[in-house]
């Protein structure tokens, strides 16, 4: 359709406004971030190491002169207040011109809620931990990026690892928290088993409430089911509680525990040796890649000095989120040849961005989901410390369905040959 004459000035004004909105900004005195994590209740056992990772990274970045010369500071928001409070805090911070970037959130539910708001408010945001594969299914976000990979790759990796580690496994039990993260993981593990080893039987499938203080009846039920393997993606206080309550009752003498988020509990609870644990991605600070890259050791040293503990993978995930954010600022500045990028330039810079994190390579796919490798291992005591041994590192790209494909249907299309082609436990040392 041909434009009428009075439309031209309107179109020109709109273009000018759009250009103005995307224009570079003056360099601020401080880069203020909103950092969202769980800081109270049972989930804080997982969320606080994330916050501590953020504190260490801010110290380290500022010691090196900040992001493009601008010092970084953070306001921490407790996700334990519930989704409504989290959304309200996110809006409050995003609408404050003093804030330039959000690192939110830990919970998948909160990321699902915040992603559309990030687009509404044009706020560049990194989902530092949330893993749900539902996040980008049918959604096209411009401002919300997740440098993590997702639940498909993560939980497939565990199923493949324990099948390789225990080839005779025939009975599997699942105990996951009763919300989307737990149910999604169960579906992914079951779909993977059905595809690559269909003879495996699921003998119990339990979904206790997130934040339960006791799992004694569930432990009895699992004992009665006599599984070879017990898979769980419980986390934080739930995971610690479950292991503390199940171990004295001998559950792990007869069944191998597969704790998807188990590395985060290695310092706080006596995870039975021989259990299979991982880091939901590649964020293990002692992995060979991390040692080769060389960023993890100084981070761990600073973390130990500040908190008297080794960093666990939530700390490393948070640290990697900061590295991605820093890389995004540097790329946006270089791409646009400006002193300080606008929020639009920042979001655009993250499109398809690749960067080296503390523990490996991360590339954003077209849907803004990060591709990272998956690391799984077996718990053993080395020099008096519980660590991951006998590790396998699964290629991130191989473990994700092609863009636009239904993830569960894609897993269903896999064959036992897929398992045979995977790296074996112990191949990554």
């Amino acid at each position, binding site marked *: 359709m041909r434009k009428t004459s009075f439309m031209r000035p309107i179109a020109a004004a709109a273009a000018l406004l759009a250009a103005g909105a995307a224009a570079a900004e003056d360099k601020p005195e401080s880069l203020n971030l909103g950092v969202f994590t769980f800081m109270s209740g049972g989930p804080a056992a997982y969320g606080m190491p994330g916050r501590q990772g953020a504190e260490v990274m801010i110290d380290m970045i500022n010691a090196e002169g900040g992001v493009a010369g601008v010092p970084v500071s953070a306001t921490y928001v407790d996700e334990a207040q519930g989704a409504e409070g989290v959304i309200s805090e996110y809006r409050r911070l995003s609408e404050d011109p003093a804030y330039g970037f959000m690192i939110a959130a830990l919970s998948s539910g909160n990321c699902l809620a915040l992603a559309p708001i990030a687009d509404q408010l044009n706020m560049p945001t990194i989902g530092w931990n949330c893993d749900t594969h539902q996040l980008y299914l049918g959604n096209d976000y411009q401002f919300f990026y997740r440098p993590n990979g997702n639940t498909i790759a993560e939980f497939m990796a565990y199923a493949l690892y324990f099948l390789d580690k225990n080839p005779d496994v025939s009975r599997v039990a699942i105990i996951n928290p009763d919300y989307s993260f737990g149910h999604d993981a169960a579906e992914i593990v079951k779909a993977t088993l059905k595809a690559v080893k269909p003879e495996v039987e699921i003998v119990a499938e*339990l979904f206790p409430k997130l934040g339960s203080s*006791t799992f*004694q009846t569930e432990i009895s039920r699992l004992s*009665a089911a006599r599984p070879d393997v017990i898979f769980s993606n419980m986390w934080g206080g739930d995971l610690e509680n479950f292991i503390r309550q199940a171990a004295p009752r001998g559950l792990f003498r007869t069944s191998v525990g597969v704790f998807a988020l188990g590395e985060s509990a290695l310092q706080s609870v006596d995870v039975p040796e021989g259990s299979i644990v991982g880091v939901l991605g590649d964020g293990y600070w002692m992995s060979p890649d991390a040692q080769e890259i060389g960023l993890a050791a100084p981070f761990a040293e600073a973390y130990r000095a500040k908190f008297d503990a080794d960093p666990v993978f939530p700390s490393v995930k948070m640290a990697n989120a900061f590295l991605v954010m820093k890389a995004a600022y540097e790329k946006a500045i270089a791409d646009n040849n400006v002193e300080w990028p606008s929020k639009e330039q920042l979001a655009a810079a993250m499109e398809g961005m690749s960067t080296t994190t503390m523990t490996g390579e991360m590339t954003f796919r077209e849907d803004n989901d990060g591709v990272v490798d998956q690391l799984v291992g077996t718990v053993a005591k080395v020099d008096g410390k519980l660590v991951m041994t006998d590790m396998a590192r699964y290629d991130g790209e191989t473990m994700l369905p092609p863009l636009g494909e239904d993830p569960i249907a894609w897993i269903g299309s896999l064959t036992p040959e897929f398992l045979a082609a995977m790296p074996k436990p112990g191949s990554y040392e």
Partner: protein
Amino acid sequence: MLQTLIPLFVDALANAALIFFVAVGLTLVFSVLRILNVAHGSLYSIGAYVAASVGLWIVAAGLPAWLTFPALVLSAAFTALLFGPVIERTLIRWTYGKSEAVQVLVTFGLFLILEDLQRMVFGVQSIYADTPMALLGISEIGGIVYLNYQLALIGLAVAVLIGLRLFIRRSRTGKLLAAVVADREVSQAMGIDTNKMFMIAFTLGVLLAALGGAMATPTTGVAPGLGADTMVLAFAVAAIGGLGQVEGAAVASVIVAVAKVLAIYYAPALDAVAPYLVMLAVLLVRPYGLFGAGATRRI
């Protein structure tokens, strides 16, 4: 068959024991004071926090580990003596004779205050103090390993039920409490110090809640939010048994526990709602609970 039923039975009783402590305290307070104390769950979690903190201190101080057993009971008693009289004399007493809505609002306000108080005093991280559990060891029943501590709790719950019954029926204070329950005005006319009875009943209710929390600590983690979860379950038990009925609380605890355990074993998706489905079914048939009786309305 028996092999399958025995674990169900043991799990149900172990669950019932923990639920009973808190539910019986709630129902006792209601029977004497005619107040539904929404803050009862917070007193359960304060009991748990105090017991866990004392237990951890005993271990850290290198004292004999067996001291953690008396510490559980003493922590509950300390909590009851610290909070019971103070709360009753200040907040609860003010609500006597007021409408149920005022009473619920006041105790709900108290619940919020106590929840924040716990965060200020004990922090926001989970606490674990499992020494008593480790000391008692394990037993195998029906092919399933149980903690002897779980089995001991069943015995303790039965002992508390019998003790409570004996206290109410045989002791002078118990008989005075029963008289106040039967008719508050006549009791007052006959010279019974009802204010004192209210304070004793409320403190006893706090003791039972705190004892429940303290006894739960060796097999559970203590974290913010524990009180609210427990309270909702205690309400269901009190409603099923009939508000104000001690034996009703005991039977309802077993019913709720059986429903929960059956759900976990055979229909895990219903685990969270099973107790409330049972409550709904009971209230549809008996609106005043299994042991409750309809109140005559005075005009």
